[in-house]
């Protein structure tokens, strides 16, 4: 192997080794195409999501206070009714019979009292005459006492009859009351949302859930509200008066506006859930074009901070780094420093689905790298940039 060949090999190797250096010097490293924007003022609305349903605040489930067959039904499901309007009648034949019986008893007792009053008057006259004769010793003591006793007994009988009259009058009132309950009126103004009884069926006076005990449900459609369950971990951020956006499952593209009205004091384990939840009631202030029906499932987004403009950047521009061994976590963004990426530490505040609040660290005229995501994900300090300004 001669020196010439060795020199040639060394020359080739040197040239090959030099080419990458020359490439970098002439062409540089590839610049990464990124989008930049400056810090913008935005309303960051952190929110809590909760699910629930629509319900009526003012709703009455009517049931009968008397047992009887429904003879007339004056309304249908969906009808609008006024307060005091007659809704249905229960067959009152038995009640009428009881009424007549009670009235007859009252009359009989009244007659009885009249008879006794007449008898007392008669006895009082007899007593007066007997006293006069007794004073002139024309009548013995025994006869005088007999008349006195008869008068006293008659007065006691009269008292007893009067009490009996009061008793049958009370019974008459009771029958009248039952008779009145055979005609069922609407207690509120509203809409019949559920009609559970038909003509000919038996209405049963009961609070238990047996057939015939529930007649109908009347609700005030203007009192519809949203009831959601908020997890106990989130309830501390909820307050009465907070703005809410409600989406009914049946109308996913038509959000409604609402306001938190009530937060329960006591947590409960809701059906189908494992943790504790608090009931939150939300008034619907603007239903938009949505036709609200109670029982509809819905999703509420409760905004826990209201309408305050802060300095913000897109979420994807923020990089989170965590060092668990040192219990340290920090946030960074990349800024454009004359075509070179610089990693800058920032302090952050609240965030929503799209933006992160900047508490400190960045001037308003600094260009922040906001995308594309696949470049931002792999960006490193010192990378060359090909910048495209973006409006956010």
């Amino acid at each position: 192997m001669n020196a010439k060949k060795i020199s040639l090999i060394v020359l080739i190797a040197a040239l090959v080794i030099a080419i990458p250096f020359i490439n970098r010097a002439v062409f540089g490293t590839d610049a990464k195409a990124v989008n930049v924007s400056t810090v913008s003022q935005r309303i960051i609305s952190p929110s809590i999501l909760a699910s629930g349903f629509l319900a009526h605040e003012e709703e009455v489930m009517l049931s009968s206070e008397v047992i009887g067959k429904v003879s007339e039904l004056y309304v249908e499901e969906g009808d609008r009714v006024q307060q005091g309007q007659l809704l249905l009648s229960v067959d009152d034949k038995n009640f009428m019979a009881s009424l007549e019986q009670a009235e007859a008893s009252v009359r009989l007792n009244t007659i009885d009292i009249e008879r006794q009053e007449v008898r007392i008057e008669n006895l009082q006259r007899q007593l007066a005459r007997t006293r006069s004769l007794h004073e002139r010793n024309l009548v013995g003591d025994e006869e005088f006492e007999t008349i006195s006793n008869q008068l006293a007994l008659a007065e006691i009988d009269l008292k007893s009859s009067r009490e009996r009259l009061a008793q049958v009058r009370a019974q008459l009132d009771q029958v009248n009351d039952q008779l009145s309950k055979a005609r069922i009126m609407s207690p509120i103004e509203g809409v019949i949302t559920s009609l559970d009884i038909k003509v000919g069926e038996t209405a049963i006076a009961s609070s238990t859930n047996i057939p015939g005990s529930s007649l109908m449900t009347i609700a005030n459609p203007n009192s519809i509200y949203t009831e959601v369950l908020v997890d106990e971990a989130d309830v501390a951020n909820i307050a009465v008066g907070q703005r809410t956006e409600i989406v009914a499952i049946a109308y996913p593209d038509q959000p409604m506006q609402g306001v938190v009205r009530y937060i329960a004091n006591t947590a409960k384990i809701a059906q189908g859930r494992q943790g504790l939840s608090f009931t939150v009631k939300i008034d619907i202030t603007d239903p938009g074009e949505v036709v609200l029906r109670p029982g509809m499932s819905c999703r509420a987004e409760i905004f826990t901070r209201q309408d305050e403009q802060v300095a913000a950047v897109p979420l994807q521009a923020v990089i989170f780094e965590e060092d668990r061994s040192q219990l340290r976590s920090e946030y960074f963004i990349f800024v454009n420093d004359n075509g070179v990426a610089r990693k800058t530490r920032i302090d952050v505040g609240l965030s929503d689905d799209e933006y992160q609040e900047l508490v400190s660290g960045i001037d308003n005229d600094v260009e922040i790298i906001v995308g594309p995501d696949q470049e931002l994900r792999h960006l490193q300090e010192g990378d060359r940039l090909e910048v495209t300004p973006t409006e956010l």
Partner: protein
Amino acid sequence: MNQETISNSHAEKTHPVTTAINILTAPGEAFTTIRAYPTKLFPVSVVLLSLMAVMFWYFSIVDFDWYVDNTLAQANLSDAQHDEARERMLSMSQTNFMLLGMVGAGVGILAIWMLQTVYLTLVSALRGDDIKFTHWFSLVAWTGLTSLVSVLGMCVNILLNTNGQLSNYDLDPLTLANLGMQSSNSSIEMIFNAINLTVIWSLILMMMAYRQWLQSGWVRAVGIVLGPYILIIGVLAYFAIT
């Protein structure tokens, strides 16, 4: 027609390393040795091992997450296809990619060599030349040693990279694309990425060997050795332009 060939008895058997150096510095001598002693083991094992080694090194240092995104960015996929492909690629480990890269490099180079050898053997058989498959394969393998120069360049690029963000297209500094030949046309860009200086060098060596072994002129040597490449590049260029 039989061609005059160089007498085997005039060639001395040299050490494989000497032959390798001669391929790069004094190809005529190397061709004489190869014609007389068509060995294959040394060049095949050196080239395969060096390529596989550099693939191993490359996949050891590359930022795998970035590599997946960079690979997918070059394929025109919809968002849904992109996400699905990304998930599938990330489910494979970096080691799997390394093994695929190593095996792919080895199998790929062997496949190309076999195609070249079969083609040259067929041409020889049709022409009645006295060169057999074993000679052509040996020649292809020895001229393939020029790829060691590419491997050296790849090693330099890997050493210069500090963040693991080195694409497989930027790995070889001797490709036409990395030497400054760029095109907005994806087909032509693909050609520039596929051809590097060592491939051109290898083809020149093969043409020189063909002339020397078969005492032919340059026109025939160029036509026979480069014929398939000109055809393929021509077809690609035609579709790229139209």
